């Protein structure tokens, strides 16, 4: 079987498996957040924390709860990293330096998992387990509950309450993430991911050199790394490391699990708004963009040899930086899936992708986590872009725009505009500062367009909570560590503030607007096409100068 055929089979199997999970998992997610019944363990936690589980919060209280929880999480994780040498299971690792510790804390609390360190030589087992892995659960839960609160904005009327953050996040962790992580983790461990507390062992190789073999609780971190769209690996080489991702089956399963919750969330949305076809419409948008990304990267990686590169022709694709166990098709499918979600896990070196292949990965990230996006983040992102589409369509036919029975008024559009503009402002400002200052320039190790791509990719990845990198940038310097920390915090929480503000504004509207002859049907292929077009045009126009001077210029060179 050729590697291309194997790649297409992987994709087809992935499509079927995700389709099979769409309805049951989506229904289950909707049920988690709509039922009134609390589990015993949840009631115990509410009593312990003094939470009234029946008391809903208005949007601003909801978002303040998120900010308070996240601020404490950053400081707690920073403390663990800075004190790890004195804690159990440190494996002799020294304390993490302050700038790396802060960048990592901001990174894991924001679901980014940008890693300016090599896990196996920087973090002890306890830090990996109680610091990083815990945040991988909690940051994923925060993303999901923001999406749920956003959906409640559409389902509720004449109220300023969007739910209770503490209840939502507790339910999300106990009913969704932990059960899925246990099942998925066992599958990964059965597939060969390691799971132990063995100290590192040193062996002498046949050539007389010494090699250190690390151990560690990898399987339990690996599953939430992918399922929660976190991406931060136990090892420096992430999913290219055989202890994390041992074989083609675990590679396929990893891709499946990182797409699972984002692709099931539109079903939960459809279920909660009591119109499953609305969910199918948004799912179609996500699938179209995902397939374009997979097809685009696969094409450029497989057909790199068109220009006459003999080595690439012999290897059936661009194989620099590609893990030979998975080949160019396995790399392309993974790269597309990890960048259209906010995962950022990698099984090949993104810096070695062909210029256009890497450009698509950058464009995927710039889309802002919407196809299907990060867990939760994809849902609220695409809902806002659907609102923008309805607004544009309303202007075209001269009608007041409506979506799901809610009027899209200037107030809602201001929130949507603020949401959409936040990320480009954060990304392009940070990239501009790095390119325009001597301090930033000193860490760019590749000349010309590729160097520019690396800087833009870095900040796009950080702001969109992706975490993958074009690694030819010296991002371990204090400049990039500190600026990156701010970019991640503002890239994550500022859009969430505007998304929840928009949800609050929608929930306050009195009665649903009845359907009329001028109402745009948001369940049709026409609307799906319009959303796709609006997304591609908005993002394309926003980032065109950077894409033109970076990957496009490099590719045409």
């Amino acid at each position, binding site marked *: 079987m050729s590697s291309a055929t194997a790649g297409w089979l992987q994709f087809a199997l992935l499509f079927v498996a995700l389709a099979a999970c769409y309805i049951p998992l989506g229904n289950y997610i909707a049920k988690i957040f709509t039922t009134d019944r609390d589990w015993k363990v949840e009631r115990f936690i509410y009593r312990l924390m003094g939470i009234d589980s029946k008391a809903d919060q208005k949007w*601003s209280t909801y978002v303040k709860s998120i*900010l308070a929880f996240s601020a404490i999480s950053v400081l707690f994780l920073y403390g663990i990293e*800075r004190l790890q040498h004195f804690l159990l299971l440190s494996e002799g690792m020294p304390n993490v330096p302050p700038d790396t510790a802060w960048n990592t804390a*901001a990174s894991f609390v924001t679901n980014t998992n940008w890693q300016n360190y090599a896990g196996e030589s920087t973090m002890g087992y306890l830090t990996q387990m109680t610091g990083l892995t815990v945040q991988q659960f909690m940051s994923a839960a925060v993303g999901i509950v923001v999406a749920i609160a956003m959906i409640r904005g559409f389902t509720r009327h004449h109220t300023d309450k969007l739910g209770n953050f503490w209840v939502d996040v507790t339910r999300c962790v106990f009913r969704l993430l932990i059960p899925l992580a246990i099942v998925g983790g066992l599958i990964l461990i059965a597939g060969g991911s390691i799971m132990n507390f063995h100290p590192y062992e040193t062996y002498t190789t046949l050539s007389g050199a010494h090699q250190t073999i690390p151990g560690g609780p990898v399987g339990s971190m690996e599953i939430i790394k992918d399922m929660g769209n976190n991406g931060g690996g136990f090892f420096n080489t992430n999913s290219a490391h055989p202890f994390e991702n041992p074989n083609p089956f675990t590679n396929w399963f990893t891709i499946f699990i990182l797409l699972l919750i984002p692709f099931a969330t539109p079903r939960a949305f459809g279920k909660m708004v009591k119109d499953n076809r609305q969910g199918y419409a948004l799912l179609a948008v996500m699938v179209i963009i995902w397939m374009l990304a997979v097809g685009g990267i696969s094409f450029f990686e497989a057909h790199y040899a068109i220009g006459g*590169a003999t080595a690439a022709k012999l290897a059936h694709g661009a194989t620099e930086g590609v893990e030979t166990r998975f080949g160019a098709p396995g790399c392309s499918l993974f790269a597309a899936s990890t960048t259209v979600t906010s995962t950022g896990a990698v099984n090949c070196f993104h810096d070695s992708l062909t210029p256009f292949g890497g450009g698509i990965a950058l464009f995927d990230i710039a889309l802002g986590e919407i196809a299907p996006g990060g867990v939760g983040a994809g849902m609220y992102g695409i809902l806002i872009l659907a609102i923008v589409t309805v607004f544009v369509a309303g202007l075209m036919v001269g009608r007041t725009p409506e979506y799901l029975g809610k009027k899209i008024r200037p107030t809602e559009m201001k929130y949507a505009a603020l949401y959409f503009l936040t990320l480009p402002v954060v990304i392009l400002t940070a990239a501009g500062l790095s390119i325009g200052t001597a301090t930033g320039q*000193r860490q760019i190790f590749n000349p010309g367009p*590729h160097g520019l791509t690396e800087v833009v990719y870095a900040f796009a990845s950080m702001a969109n909570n992706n975490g993958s990198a074009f690694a030819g940038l010296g991002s371990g*310097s204090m400049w990039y560590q500190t600026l990156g*920390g701010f970019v991640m915090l503002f890239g994550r929480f500022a859009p969430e*503030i505007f998304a929840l503000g928009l949800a609050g504004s929608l929930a306050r509207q009195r009665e649903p607007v009845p359907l009329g002859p001028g109402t745009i049907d948001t369940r049709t292929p026409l609307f799906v096409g319009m959303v796709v077009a609006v997304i591609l045009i908005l993002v394309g126009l926003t980032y065109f100068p950077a894409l033109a001077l970076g990957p496009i210029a490099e590719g045409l060179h």
Partner: protein
Amino acid sequence: MEFVRDDTAVAWVPHGRGISPAQRAFMDRLTYAVPRRPLEDTMYDLLYIGLTILAFGVLWLIVKGVERFER
């Protein structure tokens, strides 16, 4: 297509007028991992705790600003 990777040297050379020794030292601190003394680490701990408070404080102010805008 030519090979673009060059790990041996900084590729983007800073342009413009010469920089003072103080600026150079500050840039070195921002650019390179420099071994630090324990007291210096404590100062950096305070700096990053302060930056955390600053970042979340600004986000908090954005929420307050939006609340005011709503009214």
